[in-house]
Structure formats: structure tokens, C-alpha cells
């Protein structure tokens, strides 16, 4: 029974990382696609929005990884062996982004170093979700070859393929989209609101294009993605709901709604993650030889799962209310000295 609690938490951690961490990465992606004239203004809005919560946004990745290595060690070690290179690149992105964001807000002197921090922040905000997407895509692409004899097939082709890379760009576009939708509600001037709406539209188109590329790549690489998504009622419903909510969301944006659209964007992410995980559940890694690694069959010892499940349940009693209060408290930005200096 506890295995389902643990799997539920894993799924939730991935979803929350996609939504909250994604919006966080997206803020950097938006900055990348902002003209120099508007950059500093965008940066300020973005920083005020994510400053208090950015550390917490990235904790979901830690929770997911701990669940994997405690509860599903074979899955964790297979991925970390065969996806060593993209994981290392992603880690470099995480280091660069986390430190650059902190350095640029806490450097006591404001000078040309800010340009360095900004560059690092912007590029790493792009690279990290790109490789997160590549890793996620590789897990289900069926290119991980545990019997490979040579370096290229074992450690390069496992992730360096059209499908995985397309998923990487799709992830980047989703992050940018989430950030733009989130930031619409954080703006104080109309010109800025309009700018973020344009960004949201641009990112939405980018996500659709990248999503199309994912499907083309899946056909090219013989991955039954079409069947995973449209071959079952849940997948069809999820895609339909996501599409309807997207239309509703754009209607509401045109009506000047600022907050409810966040819920709809979050709902769309939930539907996307649902469609992509539902059909091959409980298998989360598909291997080249046709085998797979299943969350059920490859779970750790019963007592380990039990302990993990209890730790997660108890932990969430502390984390969720505290996190909720943190997000709620900083919704209103009109009082307090925001950055502290």
C-alpha cells in the first residue's frame, strides 16, 4: 500500500518541480528573450516575484531524487550511469543558476559584475531545463542500452537523439510559458503587463511548435508516443482538457484576469504530465532491449518503502502548510522593504 503513497509523492514532486521550478527557470528564459531596453525592469519584477520562494522551488527536485534513490535504487543507478553526461551538464546548470541569482541580488556593490551574473543566470536558466527535458525524454525513449559494449552507445546515444532533444526544447518552452503567465499577475504597469502577455503568446507558440517536433521525432525514432497519448481514454481526455483550458485561459487574459490564469496554466502542466506518464505507468525507464524498469517491480525493500512513505507523509504535514503560507504572504508586494538593501 505504502508503495502507492511513495509513487504519488514522486509524481507530485515531479509536477510541482515542473510548475514551480519551471516558472522559476522560465523567468531566466524570459529575460533571455527580452530586449535590452526592458531587461532591468523585467528583472526587477521577476526578482520580486521569485526572490522569497526560489530556494523552495528547487527542493522538489531533491525530494524526487531522494524518493528515487531510497525507494527505487535500480532506477536511480541505471539513470545515473547511462545518463551521466546530461546529468552532469544539468548539475552544472543548477550550480551556475543558483549561485548567479544569489550573487546578483546579494552583491553589496552594483557594478559591471552584474553583467556577468546576468549572463550566467540567463544561459543556465536555459540549459538546465533543456537537459532536464533531455533526461526525462531519454528515460522513455528506449535508447538506454544496458548491454552496450562501446562508449558511444552506452553513454552518448542514450540521450543524444532527436526525441530527447525535442523534449528538452519542449520543456524550455513550457518553463518560459509558465513564467510569463505567472509574471502577468506580478506587474504594476500596463505596458509591462502587455509585454508579458506577448511573451506568454510567444512561449505558447514555441511550446506548440516544440510539441509538434516531439511527435515528429517520435515517429522518426519509432517511439509509440502517438499511441501513448491518443491510444487511451485518459490521454485523449487530458489532451482535450488541456486544450480547452488553454482557450479559456487566453480568453480570460483578454478580459484582464491576472491570477486565475495561473491555476489554468498549472492545470495544463498537470494534464501534460498525466498523458505522458499514464500509458506506460508503472514503467518509468524503457530500455533498448525492450525491457523496462518499473516502479512496482524495481522498488526497494518493503521496510524501506514504508519508512520513506511515512517520512514523506509526516514531512508534507510541515512542508505544505509552511510553503502555502510563504507563497500567500508574498503575494502582496506593497509593504516591507523587498530586497533588503
Amino acid at each position, binding site marked *: 500500500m505504502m508503495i502507492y503513497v511513495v509513487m504519488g509523492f514522486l509524481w507530485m514532486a515531479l509536477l510541482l518541480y515542473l510548475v514551480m521550478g519551471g516558472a522559476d527557470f522560465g523567468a531566466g528564459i524570459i529575460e533571455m528573450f527580452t530586449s535590452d531596453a526592458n531587461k532591468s525592469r523585467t528583472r526587477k519584477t521577476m526578482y520580486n516575484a521569485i526572490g522569497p520562494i526560489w530556494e523552495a522551488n528547487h527542493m522538489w527536485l531533491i525530494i524526487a531524487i531522494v524518493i528515487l534513490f531510497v525507494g527505487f535504487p535500480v532506477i536511480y543507478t541505471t539513470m545515473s550511469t547511462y545518463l551521466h553526461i546530461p546529468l552532469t551538464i544539468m*548539475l552544472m546548470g543548477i550550480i551556475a543558476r543558483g549561485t548567479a541569482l544569489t550573487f546578483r541580488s546579494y552583491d553589496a556593490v552594483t557594478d559591471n559584475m552584474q553583467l556577468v551574473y546576468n549572463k550566467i543566470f540567463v544561459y543556465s536558466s536555459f540549459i538546465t531545463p533543456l537537459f532536464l527535458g533531455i533526461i526525462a525524454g531519454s528515460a522513455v525513449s528506449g535508447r538506454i542500452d544496458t548491454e552496450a559494449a562501446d562508449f558511444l552507445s552506452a553513454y552518448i546515444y542514450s540521450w543524444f537523439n532527436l526525441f530527447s532533444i525535442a523534449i528538452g526544447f519542449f520543456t524550455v518552452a513550457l518553463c518560459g510559458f509558465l513564467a510569463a503567465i505567472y509574471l502577468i499577475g506580478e506587474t504594476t504597469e500596463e505596458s509591462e503587463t502587455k509585454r508579458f502577455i506577448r511573451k506568454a503568446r510567444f512561449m505558447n507558440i514555441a511550446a506548440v511548435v516544440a510539441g509538434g517536433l516531439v511527435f515528429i521525432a517520435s515517429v522518426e525514432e519509432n517511439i509509440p508516443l502517438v499511441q501513448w497519448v491518443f491510444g487511451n481514454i485518459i490521454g485523449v481526455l487530458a489532451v482535450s482538457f488541456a486544450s480547452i483550458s488553454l482557450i479559456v485561459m487566453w480568453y480570460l487574459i483578454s478580459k484582464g484576469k491576472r491570477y486565475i490564469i495561473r491555476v489554468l496554466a498549472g492545470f495544463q502542466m498537470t494534464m501534460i504530465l498525466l498523458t505522458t506518464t499514464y500509458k506506460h505507468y508503472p514503467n518509468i525507464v524503457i530500455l533498448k532491449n525492450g525491457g523496462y524498469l518499473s516502479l512496482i517491480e524495481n522498488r526497494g525493500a518493503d521496510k524501506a518503502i514504508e519508512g520513506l512513505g511515512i*517520512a514523506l507523509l509526516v514531512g508534507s504535514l510541515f512542508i505544505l502548510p509552511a510553503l502555502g503560507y510563504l507563497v500567500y504572504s508574498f503575494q502582496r508586494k506593497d509593504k516591507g522593504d523587498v530586497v533588503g538593501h
Partner: protein
Amino acid sequence: MDNFMAARSQMALSLGFHIIFSCIGMVMPFFMAVSHFMYLKTNNINYQHVTKAWSKGVAIFFATGAVSGTVLSFELGLLWPTFMKHAGPIFGMPFSLEGTAFFIEAIALGFFLYGWGRFNKWFHWFTGVIVGVSGLASGILVVAANAWMNSPTGFKLVDGKYTDIDPIKAMFNPAWFSQALHMCVAAFAATGFAVAGVHALMILRKRNVGFHMRSFRIAAIFGVVAAILQPLSGDISAKMVAKRQPAKLAAMEAHFKTEPYSPLIIGGIPDVKNQKVDYAIEIPGMLSFMAHDDFKTPVKGLDQIPLADQPPVAVTHYAFQFMVGLGMAMMALGVIYLIALAKKKSWFTKQWFLTLFIAATPLGFIAVEAGWTVTEVGRQPWIIQGVMRTKDAVTPMPGIGYSFYLFTAVYFTLSIAVIFLLYRQIKMVPVLYDTTAESSAH
């Protein structure tokens, strides 16, 4: 570079880097909480300045510690997949709980850093305390996981299969308490002395003396008390090592020969080939007493341990000597501080007194690194003491050398960046934090 050595070097580098940031990240919130408390109680704005200045430092250290910690949770699998495949479910309990503690810390830090003037002042203060408490809990849990590698329990190994897994028993393994205690006290001592040293330098240079004196005294008292208590926790740790890891103890002491009245060997150059130590001071019976509370009982020497199961003696011995020596120096300085506090207040502004503290700035962290060298190198050739060898755990992926060079470059750059940022924080104290310019009044 040999793949195995590269993997070990990368792990050592990542841990060595992370330890500094996590120590500061878990201890400095307590300094902040004290000065914040003083501000709320006395309404003296200077304490608020100290608190705010420190909180910037904490934010920088926490962020760096958080990302390097995230990296470590992946590196366990990237570098030691065979280890994690078997050990993950057994010693995972403290990591599961640590995830929560770390999360709470990140949330509390958000409240604390951005909460000035937003919340009830005592709620705001309390969130700062939570940052410290959850950071400390994280530290204890992670060290408990490491202690399991030194004293593995909570499973049975039958025909190469790990069965009867009991994660709670594994978490409360015999070494968890002694190791966690030793590490926490070390973190307070190291951070206390490091922070005090930086402020002592500014006092000596007559910059914002009032501001820096307040900061100095809060940091120093934490460091001093910890440094004086540390030998006690060291003794508890040594007894545990003697019981569980005789090879590690023998290497720490460069203790080659098993004999009654085993001597405590201080300093010296271990000569592994001829099984002796040159130029050392020997105190007969002392090692027996420290390990077994009795001067006569022999302590197992390296002569009774197969060569294949022996850790590198020289590195372990030197690291241990360094750690103890530095610990003693800090304790002595601690006693001087207490004398100054009780009887000789005038010492606080004396040049020799401040110079000693400035000189002591890095000592605690060198001791922490040395101590981890003892723990980790002293456990070799095992990754799980007596159960799995480190070389059997390493990743099959070739070319880890390149990964090691990459991580070295990144961590080196980050270290420079953090020092640069701290330098700028301190340089800007008169402009940003101590605007009342009371320094001239002193």
C-alpha cells in the same frame, strides 16, 4: 587519471567544498538569532544592522551550500552506482527526513530574508531560529547516513544479497550519535572562529569598531564554548572508532604493533615499510586508556590487519594530528577569551588578542577538512565498512577524470566568487549597515 582515483577525488572535492558552506549555513543563523534577539529586546538599531549584514552572508552561503548539496545527491549515483543500488534503501531513512528538514529551512529562509517589516517581529525572529534548527537537523541526519557507512547495521548480507532491511536501525547505527555530535560541535567551533576572526580584523583596522565588536563577541562566544567542549565529543568518537573500526584507529595513530600499554603517538613520520614511526613523541599506555579506559589493554595494531584491509596510514595519521593540534590551539584561545570575558575586558581591544583571533580564522575549517579526511580515508578500502569495497562501487563509465577537472574548475571559481562577494559585503559595511558611523565615538 585513473577512473577510480578520479571518482574518489571528485567525491572528496565535492564533499570538502559542501562541508564548509553547510557548516556556515547551519551555524550562522544562530548568531543572527542572537543579535536579532538583542535588537528586539534592547531596540538598539546597531544589532539590527549586524543581523542584516549577517543575513546577506547566510543567503550567499546557503545558496552555495544548497546547490552543492543538490549536486552531491546526484553524485552518489553518478560516481558510486553499485553502492547506491544496495545502500540506498538501507541508509535512505535519514536522507528522506533530511529532505523535509532542508525544505523547511529553505521556506524559513524565505520568510526571514524577505520578512523585515512584514510580519509580527517575534514571528519573524522565530523563522530565523527555524532556519538554524532545521539546518542543524539536516546536518545531523546527513552525518547519521555517513555513520552508517562506518558502522553498517540494519540489514543482513546473505550470499551477496542484502536482506532483512531495517532502515530505522540503520539510521540509529552505533556511530550516529558520536559522529553527529562531533560534527555539530565542530561546525560551531569552526564557524564561530572564522566569523570572529573576520570581525577582529576590522576592529584592528579601526573600521566601524562598535559594529564589528558586537559581531565579534556573538560569534566568538559560540566558537569558544564549542572549541572547549570538542575534546569531550572527540573522546566519545575515538572510543567508537576503536570498537568498530580498529584499522582506522590504528592508521590515525600510526599504531603498528599490538602490545599492552599501547602508546599514544604524537606527530612523527609513519614508515609503513618498516612498521614504525620516526621522530614521534610516545606516551605509553595512553592509547590503551583512550580506547579502552584502561592503560593495559592492548589496542589492535596494523600488524593484525591484513594489508588489503588497511587504509593509507600516512594520510590518515597526518590528518588526525592536524585536526587534534588545531583543535587544541582553538581550545587554548577559547580559554584566553573566557579569561578576557570574566576578568580582563581590556584585552578585547588589545592588538595581540585580536591578532590571535585573526590568525585563528581558518583553523576550524582546516580542522573540519582534516577530520573528514580521517573519517573517509581512514575507512578505505571500504565504502561500507567490512561489507563493500570502494573500488567495487565505482561507476563503469570511463573518463571520470574529465568530470573531475570540470568540477575542480567550477568549485575553484565558486570559491573565489564567494570570497570576492564577502570582501565586498565587508567593505560596504559603513555604507549599507553601519550608517550611524558610531565608529568614531569609540
